[in-house]
């Protein structure tokens, strides 16, 4: 039995890259763990996504046992996509909403707590609201920004021709002398349908390439250097005559002349008075901030949208990734410093977020490079980052003693995303999805606008999910069980082995029925079919929110050029332990039993995997 289990999570850490680097002796600390114990590729979940995979890690069950199948789900009453990780429940219009975690099942730290084994859990996905635990837990992916989304940044510019993309705000500003008066955009007011705002006054100090932001916030004067990320500014939005909420925001000054351009991060929850609790115990998030300084609280810390929309460049994004890594490392070091026994977990999300944005530089021919330019300097950016991860693993290993089981793992790998499939358009062309009379693909917006539900048999949303329009389940369901079976078979036949004619490559390897890949109490919430893409492919950008654009295959032109939501067999994660373990096809479900057993606590009946050390 062990006294301690220390787990370092590296989100999206790709085995092929890691293996090649280890072969070249570039990851000395990971190699050290491998030599002490072992290394294996780690089987991931259907589908290979952060919330799905880490929920399986936490509960030891397949997604049918915890109910997280994708970032997105659909509301069967409206066919609209909804955020699948948590839900706001409001009994009526007069009371505050309550956040409800949609990850069900029993996380293994609950079993540890029941046996009095303490846990320190930093930034675990899908624990929002935070799971009560003996010890401390800081929520990760799933915590929204102050506007309630995954993150809405703001871009201030004197240019008049800028338009906001769907995931940002653009504010037109004027420079008067050396001054700019503007506002930080806060939460929406559901009543007036306008945004709450916080006044800031900007003074441009041209000769020093900086601005000074003066406000009622903290600090009252904040310096922002050209091209650099500022420190945090604590802001307060009056959300009514009687109520206010606080948040933290940081800036990146992009340009002073000839245009003035300033980027503001999504407004994160502030730890002292967060809108909703983000830690257990409630005060823990703030206690941590007092020790290590303010930190990103939003589940998605890295501003990939800012880069994707070209509001700042790769260098600024790399800077920000370093900031996130540094603060996460400070958290880890602080907590490892006082960790004596039980379970310790710290997740680094950045390997995933960085690889999404830098993958295109590994492939000179990536379609994204035709639009955004190719820079050979970044061809090794992921490797460089992996070395930083390796150094962090080395730091964590300092806390390892003879009675410690040390685990490093990733939830899935990473791959190329060059071509997208318009899944709803495929369903349309093959007679499974109908548009209203006279409407053609491309004339239908997202949210299934202009879809004729009375004639639609199946629809796609999320990252490869297909739902059948079942009678009695969906609002305008039309399929009875026999027709549903025909539809399943038709989609399986048509999509499996689907070839991208422009490239002559198989884009879809197979289609899985939910009954083949899931079991458990939440099976009925799963998408009916899951599309397993080949390397280089994914659903198109228009698919997740229910768009039906023209044409089947499209080049991926976005800077987000790497992805992992393909056939899970192609994107396993990595697993390293400082003890010899069963290296034959370990998978995420095996971690909970392994960790529990190491700490002398029996697994529960729901857990499907087995102890990798026995």
């Amino acid at each position, binding site marked *: 039995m062990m006294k301690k289990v220390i787990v370092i999570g590296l989100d999206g850490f790709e085995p092929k890259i890691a293996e090649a680097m280890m072969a070249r002796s570039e990851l000395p600390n990971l190699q050290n763990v491998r030599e002490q114990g072992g290394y294996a590729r780690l089987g991931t979940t259907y589908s290979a996504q952060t919330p799905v995979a880490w929920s399986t890690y936490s509960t030891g069950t397949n997604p049918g046992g915890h109910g997280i199948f994708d*970032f*997105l789900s659909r509301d069967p009453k*409206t066919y*609209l*996509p*909804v*955020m699948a990780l948590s839900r706001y429940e409001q*009994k*009526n*219009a*007069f*009371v*505050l909403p309550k956040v409800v975690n949609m990850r069900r099942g029993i996380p293994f730290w609950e079993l540890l707590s029941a046996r009095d084994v303490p846990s320190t859990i930093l930034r675990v996905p899908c624990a929002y609201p935070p799971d009560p635990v003996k010890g401390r837990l800081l929520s990760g992916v799933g915590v*929204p*920004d102050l*506007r*309630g*989304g*995954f*993150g*809405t*940044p703001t871009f201030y510019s004197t240019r008049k021709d800028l338009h906001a993309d*769907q*995931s*940002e705000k653009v504010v037109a500003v004027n420079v008067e002398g050396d001054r700019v008066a503007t506002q930080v955009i806060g939460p*929406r007011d*559901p*009543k007036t*349908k306008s945004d709450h705002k916080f006044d800031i006054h900007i003074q441009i100090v041209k000769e020093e390439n900086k601005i000074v932001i003066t406000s009622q916030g903290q600090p009252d004067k904040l310096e922002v250097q050209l091209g650099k990320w500022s420190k945090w500014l604590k802001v307060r939005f009056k*959300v*009514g*005559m*009687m*109520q206010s909420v606080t948040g933290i925001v940081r800036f990146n000054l992009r340009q002073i002349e000839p245009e003035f351009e300033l980027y503001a991060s*999504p407004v994160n929850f502030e730890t002292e008075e967060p809108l909703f609790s983000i830690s257990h115990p409630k005060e823990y998030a703030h206690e941590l901030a007092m020790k290590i300084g303010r930190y990103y609280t939003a589940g*998605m810390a890295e501003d*990939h*949208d800012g880069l*994707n929309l070209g509001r700042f460049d790769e260098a600024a994004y790399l800077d920000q990734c370093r900031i996130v890594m540094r603060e996460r490392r400070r958290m880890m070091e602080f907590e490892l410093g006082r960790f004596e026994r039980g379970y310790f977990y710290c997740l680094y999300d950045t390997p995933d*977020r960085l690889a*999404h944005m830098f993958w295109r530089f590994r492939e000179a021919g990536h379609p994204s490079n035709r639009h955004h330019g190719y820079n050979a300097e970044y061809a090794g950016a992921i490797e460089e980052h992996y070395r930083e991860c390796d150094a962090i693993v080395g730091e964590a290993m300092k806390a390892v003693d003879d009675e410690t089981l040390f685990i490093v793992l990733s939830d899935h790998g990473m791959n190329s995303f060059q071509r997208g499939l318009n899944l709803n358009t495929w369903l349309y062309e093959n007679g499974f999805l109908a548009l209203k009379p006279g409407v053609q693909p491309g004339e239908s917006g997202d*949210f299934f606008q202009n879809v004729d539900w009375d004639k639609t048999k199946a629809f796609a949303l999320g*990252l490869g999910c297909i739902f059948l329009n079942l009678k009695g389940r969906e609002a305008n369901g039309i399929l009875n069980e026999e027709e549903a079976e025909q539809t399943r078979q038709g989609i399986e036949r048509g999509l499996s082995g689907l070839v991208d004619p422009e490239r002559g490559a198989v884009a879809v390897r197979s289609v899985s029925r939910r009954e083949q890949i899931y079991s458990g109490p939440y099976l009925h919430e799963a998408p009916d079919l899951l599309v397993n893409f080949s390397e280089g492919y994914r659903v198109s*950008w228009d698919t*997740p*929110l229910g768009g039906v654009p023209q044409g089947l295959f499209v080049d991926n032109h976005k800077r*987000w050029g790497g*992805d992992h*939501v393909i056939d899970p067999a192609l994107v396993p994660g990595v697993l390293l332990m400082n003890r010899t373990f069963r290296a034959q096809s370990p998978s995420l479900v095996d971690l909970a039993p392994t960790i529990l057993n190491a700490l002398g606590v029996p697994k529960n009946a729901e857990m499907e995997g087995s102890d990798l050390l026995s």
Partner: protein
Amino acid sequence: MNVLVLHFPGAKRAALFNDERLENLRRLMDMGCFGALAASGEWNVLARQENHTLSLMEYFQQADKLCVETTNPVTLREKLSVGDWDYLQYTAASYPADNWSADDYLRLDQEVGEALQELSDDTVIAILGADCFVLVSANNPISGEYSGGVAADIAPTLVQLTGFPLPSAAEGTSWVAGMELNNSSGLTADEQQILRDRLSGLGYI
């Protein structure tokens, strides 16, 4: 629409509207309108007809509404949780008549908070103190501080918010007379925007 009136005869405006700890009350104040109430007339008298004083509750009874009146917090809770009422009027009797302590105000806020848990969205809520009111209703076109109201205006205002006609010889003046009431509709373009907001920043979409 249902009507819930919570009457706290001993609560004074100066304390009620200036205590930041009264979270439920403050949320309601932000949702609707609030203000001082001059002591002219009685809040629950809708009209004075020849030989008869028509109370608000009587009016709703005549309109076949299920009306309940209580001073007992236990009865209030029961009625709220079962939901068998259209008009529910609670006069808090278990408080001092005057000179409330800070704790009394906290208790009021707690009682209000508990009551709110049980309501449906289409409820018209009036919270009345000795010299003040808070009025919340989804269709209420007035928001923020409302000044110049008198006690006699409460009954006709409530009647109009529920969509009933005012009787002749109404005592006070309905604040929403002649105003267009807010109505709620299905998923608007704006709500789609909210949905987009919530999902944006995910990266994958």
